């Protein structure tokens, strides 16, 4: 039997597939929903300056290409700088598209609160990648990226899509389904 600290909610093993409200307060649920939507909008807006097909690779470089070159010119972590120099920059069209699709998806899914815990983990990984590229770049405030990381950790820990998001609406039907995909969605929401 599990007793959640700070709440009156108790989950027994009989209720393993049933929900236990993590946030009993309506105010807390609203705040978590606002944080999720805010983080989603962060990714959504910043997908906008990822501009295919060259993603800023030109003379002079700008946009995503310029940001990525900082991993080499203002090195944060040697092996990552080597990887960017030898693999990412020479194949930048591919990696530019990957960044665009990942960040646009982060915006899309966090905004609507679908598979939120999965996308929170993706957001953490993408934030670390960004940190490894530009943490030592000029005019960057490293706490901004630490805060991004912490925000995604909060979304994951609170299963933020269950509050004002589609995860909260759809989990009951996923829980009632025997399909593997539905079970997967229960786990990532």
């Amino acid at each position, binding site marked *: 039997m599990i007793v959640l600290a700070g709440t009156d909610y108790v989950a027994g093993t009989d209720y393993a597939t*049933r*929900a*236990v*409200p993590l946030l*009993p307060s*309506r105010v807390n*649920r609203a705040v978590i929903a606002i944080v999720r939507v805010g983080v*989603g*909008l962060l*990714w*959504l*807006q910043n*997908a*906008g*300056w*990822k*501009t*295919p*097909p*060259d993603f800023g690779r030109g003379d002079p470089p700008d946009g995503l290409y310029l940001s990525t070159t900082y991993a080499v010119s203002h090195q944060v972590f040697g092996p990552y700088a080597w990887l960017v120099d030898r693999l990412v920059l020479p194949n930048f069209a591919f990696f530019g598209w990957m960044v*665009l699709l990942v*960040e*646009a*998806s982060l*915006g*899309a*899914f966090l*905004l*609507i609160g*679908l598979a939120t815990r999965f996308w929170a983990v993706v957001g953490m990984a993408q934030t670390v990648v960004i940190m490894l590229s530009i943490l030592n770049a000029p005019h960057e405030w490293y706490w901004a990226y630490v805060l991004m990381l912490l925000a995604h950790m909060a979304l994951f820990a609170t299963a933020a899509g*269950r*509050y*004002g*998001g*589609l*995860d*909260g*609406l*759809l*989990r*009951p*039907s996923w*829980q*009632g*389904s025997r399909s593997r995909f539905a079970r997967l969605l229960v786990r990532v929401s």
Partner: protein
Amino acid sequence: MRTRDSLDRGALVLGVVSIVSAVFVFVHGTFQLVQIGAAGLVVALVLGLLAVVAGWLDERALMLGAGAGFLIAAAVQLVLLAGGRSGFLGGNASTFSLWLGLGVGLVAVGLAAVPEATEESLEATN
């Protein structure tokens, strides 16, 4: 107790989000979260209204239609961006991201089975 009402409300909210996004036709600079052009405005308003009506009337076919419409619009915007321009839709990757979310959301809600309400679903929608 059923949770269909909650799903309908979800579709309605997604439609309202699309309609509200139309305001970004007039917002530029720092606070322009998404780039909406003239044709994009039509997409946002027509499909958003369709989603609102679908949620209001509990019409799952309409939800799926609106969702499919957003996904097609997102795909077209992405293809246009791949050509190096915003194209006739006038959007950018933010527009793609927004329409992707609305499309996936409406399709997910439209396809959802209607289970008995659980304590969690009630908590989530309160």
